[in-house]
């Protein structure tokens, strides 16, 4: 068994770290405080041009074809500097992967190069609704075939990047007579399609540069061939693709937590109280030891899930375990790091309070920790029953 990274994976990790440090880090605080949409979008464009928006997409569609391990490594490095950029990158990669795995050749040709090259600033994943969060099968958005067109009606909630995404993967009920979760299909909808409108941006606790909106469909007419994958098989697509996305969100959580702990570790060697640097206090040393140990375990879970995915093995349980553990431990680590800075951790001039706000959502979106436990236990019991 060899746990080391390949040379390409190492180079991608280094490149991501360098880009994050030079291009993203200097801007992250400003993006959080006052926002700067054009600077944010400019960085997304640069990331796309360097190949970060299609890490796991085939080269024939202008993807990087670097695999899931490289994807996880890159997300972690980008998240160390700017979580809002990292989540946009993670979701856009996930949108690309759904298209690659289930779309028709024509759809792949149409959308993947635009997502990978940055012609589209981002991709959007429209699953959640106001009454369908943890329980997406309860969605109400509908699609009815009328002649040569599908007519979409309904509203999607909390859609990342909706204001600037070029293409939306939208789930809608296509057969109300079927059992819950069965009659759902998946569609590709372009930004600007008549009948689709973007609601106001939500005011959020963190990851503020990444916009989150309601997406409304009112008699939204899309061509018949906007259907992606098989009719009425859409829910399976969502479940499968979210497993890959979870590796992204776990990796993102890890990046924020490592940034927080690295900052705090350096701080404890500089800050003096009671006549000595605070790193000398054993109580703090143990906090640090525990946090880094848990983050290392999270990293290994993520790497293992990503490795399984890229080798074509079943990885959904592992992805849920990795997301559950990484996001929970990252939340704790950010609070530990903030505690290590004392009052300064609470002050906006220091990045700790931003890390603590940014990391909070990672144990909620793309399946809350509770839902990960539902998935994990279901798999575990299935194995023996």
């Amino acid at each position, binding site marked *: 068994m060899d746990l080391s990274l390949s040379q390409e994976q190492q180079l991608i990790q*280094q*490149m991501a770290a360098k880009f994050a440090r030079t291009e993203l880090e200097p801007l992250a605080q400003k993006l959080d405080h006052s926002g700067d949409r054009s600077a944010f979008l400019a960085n997304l464009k640069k990331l796309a041009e360097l190949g970060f928006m299609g890490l796991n997409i085939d080269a024939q569609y202008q993807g990087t074809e670097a695999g899931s391990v490289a994807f996880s490594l890159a997300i972690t490095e980008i998240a160390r500097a700017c979580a809002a950029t990292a989540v946009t990158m993670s979701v856009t990669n996930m949108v690309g992967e759904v298209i690659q795995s289930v779309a028709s050749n024509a759809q792949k040709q149409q959308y993947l190069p635009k997502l990978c090259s940055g012609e589209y600033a981002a991709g959007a994943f429209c699953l959640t609704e106001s009454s369908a969060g943890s329980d997406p099968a309860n969605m109400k958005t509908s699609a009815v075939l009328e002649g040569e067109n599908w007519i979409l009606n309904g509203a999607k909630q909390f859609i990342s990047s909706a204001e600037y995404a070029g293409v939306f993967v939208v789930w809608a009920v296509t057969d109300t007579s079927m059992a819950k979760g069965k009659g759902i299909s998946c569609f590709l909808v372009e930004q600007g399609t008549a009948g689709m409108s973007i609601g106001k941006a939500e005011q959020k606790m963190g990851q503020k540069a990444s916009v989150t909106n309601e997406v409304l469909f009112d008699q939204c007419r899309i061509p018949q061939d906007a259907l992606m994958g098989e009719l009425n098989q859409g829910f399976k697509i969502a479940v499968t693709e979210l497993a890959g996305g979870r590796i992204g969100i776990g990796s993102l959580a890890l990046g924020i937590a490592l940034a927080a702990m690295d900052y705090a570790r350096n701080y404890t060697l500089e800050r003096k109280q009671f006549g000595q640097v605070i790193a000398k206090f054993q109580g703090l040393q143990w906090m640090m030891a525990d946090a880094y140990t848990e983050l290392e375990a999270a990293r290994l879970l993520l790497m293992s899930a990503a490795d399984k995915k890229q080798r074509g093995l079943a990885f959904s349980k592992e992805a849920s375990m990795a997301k559950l553990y990484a996001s929970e431990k990252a939340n704790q680590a950010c609070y530990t790091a903030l505690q290590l800075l004392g009052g300064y951790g609470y002050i906006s001039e220091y990045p700790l309070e931003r890390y603590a706000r940014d990391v909070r959502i990672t144990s909620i979106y793309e399946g809350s920790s509770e839902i990960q436990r539902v998935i994990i236990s279901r798999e575990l019991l299935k194995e023996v029953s």
Partner: protein
Amino acid sequence: MKVLVTVKRVIDYNVKVRVKADGSDVDLNNVKMAMNPFCEIAVEEAIRLKESGTATEVIAVSVGPKACQEQLRTALALGADRAIHIESEAQLESLNVAKLLAKVIEQEQPGVVILGKQAIDTDNNQTGQMLSALTGMAQGTFASKIDIQGDKAVVIREVDGGLQTIELAMPIIATTDLRLNEPRYASLPNIMKAKRKPLEVKTPEELGVSIKAHTKLLSVGAPAERKAGIKVASVAELVDKLKNEAKVI
């Protein structure tokens, strides 16, 4: 025309350097390594020469342990066409490196050789100059602009007083200063393609160079810690202290 560009593996510039407890050297255990920033500028310049049609091939070369291949792969990902690794675990001094590079130049016959003006680990600033002496090639050090014009090259050098423009007969050796260019990022697809580019490994013996130690490292120490400053009440007091205590004016 071929361009030969040198690449050194050094401690990443962001890392806080630690000295080994016994003072024998800098501690490299578990330390992040990277391409010397001046070498990054050299690679960028070489690639631009190729992109502008002045050069036809960019060859990256590195001397040192096996791990140097990581930096050579970076150079390949950035756009070098092939790489040569001269593998040696020895403590290399500039003169040894220059002798090895001179042999590579003899074999490859490049029109332009670009090196960093110095490496940020040992800060020697002498390999380029030594290489020029060994090969008889003209040198343009501390370059902030390199302009190849057929059988001559115009190099603008950063000198203490400002900028100096010199004209050199080709082939030339140039060493890079900070303002020569701004290195690009390697794109991820190019990183993936780099593994298919040729990387040749040679040894000093194969090149007919024996590594000799001319200096002995006695000890390495951390710089003295900066003491806390004091506040002065007035300009007069400041001038007095500068004159009578610091004795600098």
